[in-house]
């Protein structure tokens, strides 16, 4: 499998305007996402995960370091060009309008449509493929407000796939999903990397699922990298306890470390 470097974030720092000195949202973070690999970004709340996403995709300009996508600096990409290469499923989406599933996935074709031109057969075909890939083709004509949380997430993923991207970025995609839908999503994401050769960056605070499904993890703590590499290397007991400020025990499962939080009884 070709392991082309799709996203190359080198040593970026960023501070939000108005934040005091020493309150860097990111400091010296690097991330390299390759085709066919799943890269998880982990860390407690406020550790800079979403900020990293924004800097990586050129939405925010870093104070130091830089981000390249397919070799070009992120700032050099227009939004439209970038949307043909990177598909993002954001943490939140507020859809104002009642829509059917097929319509909302079709929005993903925007970057490939000409200004005045209508949707072409190849656009509809891409939408159908994306729906199939995410196993929501049977829901194609449903109104999105009738979908369950898990179904809606897969529809949003289908929309990102309709962009026919090389890189898929998901920001906390399983935040409010139950076990079954979480597993379905992680399995789907893994299959997309393995079967279709997509590079995947997955921001999550579900440490254990990330450990099982990701090839590499980046652990952030207060905007700084606390470890980067295969899950087994990064998720040691000392590191996890330090970053999450809680006593844990690490137990292996299917060859991957699983974090078990311990009880802190005050006697």
């Amino acid at each position, binding site marked *: 499998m070709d392991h082309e470097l799709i996203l190359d974030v080198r040593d970026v720092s960023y501070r939000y305007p*108005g934040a005091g000195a020493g309150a860097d949202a990111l400091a010296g973070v690097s991330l390299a996402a390759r085709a066919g690999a799943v890269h998880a970004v982990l860390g407690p709340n406020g550790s800079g995960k979403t900020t990293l996403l924004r800097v990586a995709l050129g939405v925010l300009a870093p104070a130091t370091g830089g981000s390249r996508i397919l070799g070009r600096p992120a700032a050099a990409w227009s939004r439209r060009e970038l949307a043909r290469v990177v598909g993002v499923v954001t943490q939140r*989406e507020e859809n104002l309008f009642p829509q059917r599933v097929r319509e909302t996935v079709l929005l993903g074709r925007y970057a490939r449509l000409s200004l005045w031109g209508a949707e072409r057969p190849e656009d509809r075909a891409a939408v159908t493929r994306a729906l199939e890939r995410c196993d929501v083709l049977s829901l194609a004509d449903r109104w999105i407000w009738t979908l369950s949380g898990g179904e809606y997430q897969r529809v949003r993923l289908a929309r990102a796939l309709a962009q026919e991207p090389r890189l898929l970025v998901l920001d906390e995609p399983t935040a409010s999903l139950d076990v079954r839908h979480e597993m379905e999503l992680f399995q789907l994401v893994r299959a997309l990397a393995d079967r279709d050769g997509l590079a995947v960056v997955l921001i999550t605070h579900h440490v254990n699922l990330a450990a099982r499904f990701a090839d590499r993890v980046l652990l952030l703590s207060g905007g700084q990298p606390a470890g980067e590499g295969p899950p087994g290397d990064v998720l040691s007991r000392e590191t996890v306890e330090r970053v999450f400020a809680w006593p844990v025990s690490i137990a292996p499962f299917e060859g991957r470390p699983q974090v078990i939080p311990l009880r802190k009884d005050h006697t």
Partner: protein
Amino acid sequence: MKWLGLGLVVVAAFLGAVVLGPVHVPLAGLAASDIVRTLRLPRALLAFLVGGSLALSGAGLQALIRNPLADPFLLGLSGGAGLGAVAAIALHLASPWALPLAAFAGALGATALVYRLGLVGGGELDPRVLILAGVAVGAFAAAVTTAIVSLSDAAELRNTFLWLWGGLSGASWDSVLVLAVYLPLPLAVLFAAARPLDLLALGEEPARHLGADVESLKRRVFVAASLLAAVCVAVSGVIGFVGLVVPHAMRTLWGHRHRPLLPAAFLGGGALLALSDTVARVAVAPRELPVGIVTALVGVPVFALLLRRWTTS
């Protein structure tokens, strides 16, 4: 089918505006009639262009501000126009174009101020701040206007409010020509923004990642919608409800996708205003009602009906 129906409504409204009036013109004599050629025809065209522009502006602003209650005159525009008009009258400016130009300048001035206030850190337009700024600027302009009126020669300025209530009585081929030259650019900008506006409905961040240049989009839509509303006020005073109600009415038939919605809103708004103007001219003939009253009388029940549909669906 829907488009055919809309087309028929447009044609019927246009024909009504030309054939009907306080003065009876026999069908045979329509083409030769001075009244039809010099008065009714340009007035019907003006009604279309103004009604369509207001509806389009309203649809664009509703998408931009992400608020279904947005109206072209929400953002301080009508207050600014009123202030400009009152100033022109108080200064006894002589030219026949003085009043429209002053209203236009006032509208743009208010819009520029609202825009400036709506820019938050980083040069980005925040729609929520836009609404608040618009209400504030509009209220301020209205207060200054009232102050000028109360301190000045009462009779003429009372008549200003009649003008502000909205009327197409000043329609001429000159004003149609001005609109024909002015409108294409802002109209084109809004029509071209149709797809990105669909993306914006998901939220600014998702829209950005799907390929929309969100900052440029917000600026373009705000400026184009304001330019449309400003020229409409200059030409025909403040005509309410068209910009608010027509986009919603069209959404019940065409859905929320802006590519069909925007043209439908333009045509629907034009037809509604042409129809309302015909009613304004004919209902109490030989007297004329201000068209703003007719659009409100028609618009409010339609709006109430739409609200019922929403709350029951």
